[in-house]
């Protein structure tokens, strides 16, 4: 038994495991304490033996209550098993002194010592074997083990040994079975009354006793006064006047009171007191247990005390266990309530059957502006915290499941402000009704930050697009001048023909048709330019990569032709469809085309731009932009996609960096490598769109 946490009735040597090197030193240091403990054991044993002799109902040969064995048992339970030898050793001189005074022969004295020690050892070993921890009498199981080993088995087995030795030595004065029975009851009662008293008090700390409330002290005092008064009244009266058997039950209410209210220590102490008074009364020929012969009286006392003590010890243990469970439950409930109330996120509990609000926490109150009393008893629909009632239906519909996670919804507070929230719900039972507890995570701020970041990204993307279009302005003017030239020349040709009166209707129709188509062509250029100049939100749609490339090449046509760059397109026959924002991908492609043109301005370049599309095996759409320039230098390659890295005098150096971020936002990749012969290839990979 580890006593380090408790003050003990018997000073016990330090129990910490000793290091081997200092074993002798440590033992030497312990010798005084061990000697002190041994002396106490000896003294207590001697006193116990004397009391045992005193509690003998003459001429009944065996004491009503024989304490020495119980004391040894208690001492063994209080120290580790490796010190049991010391207890046995310490008890021997006390035993000799006590017994030899009564004129018993030496072999018998030693025989009794052997049987006494065997009882304590059997009881202690049994308890230690069945209970691996310190014996606690507030545990029902521990009490059971204590009763089995200490009160039943050990006294029974040692009594057989004892009586056998007595018979062997020739000291037996009574019947064998009679002797076994007598000794068994005597020792069982002693163990039952003494060991719980010692164990419960040895395990008590002074601090804990000091902390006992005033009310509890008054109660304890009243209980003991009542118990003592009753016992004195019943057990210390003239035998004749108290001959009513029912009076035996008079102390029972007080004992039950002690068992229910004061726990194992209270009942142990009460039982001890009752036992002392009962035996005292019987010894002095008073009370209900003095009516018969000494033997009858002794048996009555023993049976009465055993039958009272066993159930009461068990009852106390049960009561304490229940109290502990209740305390634990209360603590966990309090904790849960505190977590609910003080939780950093708004929380709400709703009854599932009718959607009525059962409870809300502080954060819910402050977030939505309704007090708890306003909210409870109404449904969330009545309060109207859902921006869309359908969301509420969907959410409550989902609650058929055990839990709901990450349900995104807009909620409205009392002021009408909308909160973007994520709900997590769990089914719970509150007071027997099925409820849904919902934790609300307000992500309004997070969403706003995300939106701001997205706006900045769009802003930057737009800026870079406008800069690129500025670079292309000359070429774009060219793209508009072509249809304008065609329109003007067509119109003036018609005028001339009309002036000469040499035009027929068919020719005029053709000319007008050409004017219309050229005008449309100019309009188309303007439309595409406007889309590129506009700052718009990202809009995903199904896009054919080939179409997209043709559009980009139309816009870049002038840029390419003024540089005499020949464009080769190798379009995949398989579908190359992706989900993308047209304008943003247009920007990426134009950027790649403009960069390629710039690369091919370098003398010695092959002025051929190849654009190829191909589906890839891993369900990507690939667009390859191959130039015939000098390729990319190794030191440039590393920082090619970094922002503000540029080779152009007026360039911002954002083109490729933004292109890559656009492609990444589309779930794709923008890669580059130099070609084996000349130039570089930019590989644009976008997730292929296959679904409907």
């Amino acid at each position: 038994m580890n006593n380090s946490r408790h003050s003990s009735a018997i000073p016990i040597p330090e129990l910490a495991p000793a290091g081997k090197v200092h074993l002798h030193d440590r033992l030497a240091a312990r010798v005084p304490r061990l000697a002190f403990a041994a002396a106490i054991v000896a003294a207590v044993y001697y006193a116990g033996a004397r009391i045992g002799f005193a509690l003998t109902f003459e001429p009944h040969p065996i004491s009503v209550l024989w304490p020495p064995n119980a004391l040894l048992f208690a001492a063994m339970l209080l120290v580790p098993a490796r010190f049991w030898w010391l207890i046995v050793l310490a008890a021997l001189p006390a035993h000799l002194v006590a017994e030899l005074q009564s004129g018993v022969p030496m072999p018998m004295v030693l025989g009794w010592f052997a049987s006494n020690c065997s009882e304590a050892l059997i009881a202690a070993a049994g308890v230690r074997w069945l209970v691996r921890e310190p014996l606690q009498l507030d545990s029902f199981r521990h009490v059971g083990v204590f009763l089995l080993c200490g009160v039943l088995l050990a006294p029974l087995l040692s009594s057989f040994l004892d009586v056998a030795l007595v018979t062997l030595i020739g000291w037996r004065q009574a019947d064998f079975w009679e002797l076994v029975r007598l000794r068994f009851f005597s020792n069982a009662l002693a163990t039952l009354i003494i060991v719980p008293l010692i164990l419960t008090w040895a395990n008590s700390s002074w601090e804990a006793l000091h902390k006992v409330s005033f009310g509890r002290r008054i109660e304890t005092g009243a209980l003991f006064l009542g118990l003592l008064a009753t016992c004195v009244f019943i057990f210390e009266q003239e035998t004749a006047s108290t001959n009513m058997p029912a009076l035996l039950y008079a102390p029972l209410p007080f004992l039950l009171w002690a068992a229910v209210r004061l726990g194992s220590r209270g009942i142990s102490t009460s039982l001890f007191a009752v036992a002392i008074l009962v035996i005292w009364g019987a010894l002095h020929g008073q009370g209900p247990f003095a009516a018969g012969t000494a033997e009858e009286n002794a048996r009555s006392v023993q049976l009465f005390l055993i039958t009272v003590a066993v159930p009461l010890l068990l009852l106390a243990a049960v009561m304490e266990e229940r109290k502990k469970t209740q305390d634990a439950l209360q603590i966990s409930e309090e904790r849960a309530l505190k977590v609910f109330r003080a939780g950093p996120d708004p929380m709400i509990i709703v009854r599932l059957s009718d959607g009525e609000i059962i409870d809300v926490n502080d954060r819910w109150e402050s977030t939505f502006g309704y007090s708890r009393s306003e909210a409870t008893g109404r449904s969330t629909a009545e309060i109207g915290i859902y921006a869309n009632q359908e969301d509420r239906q969907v959410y409550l519909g989902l609650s058929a499941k055990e839990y709901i996670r990450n349900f995104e919804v807009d909620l409205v507070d009392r002021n009408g402000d909308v909160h973007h929230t994520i709900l997590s719900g769990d089914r719970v039972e509150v007071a027997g009704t099925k409820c849904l507890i919902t934790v609300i995570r307000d992500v309004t701020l997070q969403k706003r930050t995300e939106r701001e970041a997205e706006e900045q990204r769009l802003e930057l993307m737009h800026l870079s697009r406008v800069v690129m279009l500025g670079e292309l302005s000359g070429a774009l003017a060219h793209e508009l001048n072509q249809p304008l030239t065609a329109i003007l020349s067509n119109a003036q040709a018609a005028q001339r023909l009309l002036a000469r009166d040499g035009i027929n209707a068919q020719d005029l129709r053709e000319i007008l048709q050409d004017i219309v188509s050229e005008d449309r062509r100019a309009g188309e250029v303007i439309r595409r330019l406007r889309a590129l100049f506009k700052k718009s939100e990202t809009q995903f749609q199904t896009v054919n990569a080939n179409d997209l490339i043709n559009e980009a090449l139309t816009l870049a046509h002038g840029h390419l032709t003024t540089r005499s760059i020949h464009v080769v397109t190798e379009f995949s026959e398989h579908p190359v469809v992706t989900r993308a924002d047209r304008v943003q991908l247009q920007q990426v492609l134009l950027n790649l085309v403009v960069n390629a043109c710039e690369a091919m301005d370098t003398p010695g370049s092959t002025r051929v731009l190849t654009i190829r599309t191909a589906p890839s095996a891993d369900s990507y759409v690939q667009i390859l932009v191959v130039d015939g320039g000098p390729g990319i230098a190794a030191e440039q390659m590393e920082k090619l996609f970094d922002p503000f890295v540029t080779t152009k005098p007026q360039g911002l150096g954002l083109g490729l960096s933004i292109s890559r971020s656009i492609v990444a936002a589309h779930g794709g990749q923008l890669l580059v490598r130099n070609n084996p012969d000349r130039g570089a290839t930019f590989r644009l990979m976008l997730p292929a769109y296959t679904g409907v």
Partner: protein
Amino acid sequence: MIREETVFVVDDDPGVLKALTRLLRSSGYAVAPFSSPLAFLDRHDPAVSGCLVLDVAMPGLNGLELQQRLAQKGNCCAIVFISGHGDVPKSVQAMKAGAVDFLTKPFSDVELLEAVDIAIGKSRAARQVDHERKLMQQRFTSLTSREREVFEHVISGQLNKLIATDLGTVEKTVKVHRARVMHKMGAATFADLVRMAERMGIRPARPSPHL
């Protein structure tokens, strides 16, 4: 108004090419459209007189490069450049290389037709000069070697008598030769003959030193 000259138009933009062709035809020109410089080089007939309306910015071979090629080949066809956007360095280069005009798209019919007229005039003049030189050359080659000697001596301004002495013949013979040279070369006067000699780069013979 039917003109004998052809206007060659080279532009890679089909819409523009068609419209320009239509405009020039409406003004009475014969027009040969080509959609690329290479197509023009491959297929046009250099014997046909006319001018070239040429786009500057084209993929592959551009307008200025075509101008250079033509110059190398000795083609004297006058060129009117048209361009999608005013590119000063390119226009300067084109004009230096002998272009008639450099028009920025979109241009009016008047601008284009004026430029084409000038170009055709220039082409025509150049062709005329060329034609005369070739004719002269042809006539010159029809002269006998004795007649050429007389030619060379005549244009040096020597008297017939002196020429006869130089060539070891009599004055009468020289006179006959001289008349035949004048006739064959188609020269009406002595001055005509001297001018022809200058054009053909024929040097007058030096008087003999024994005089």
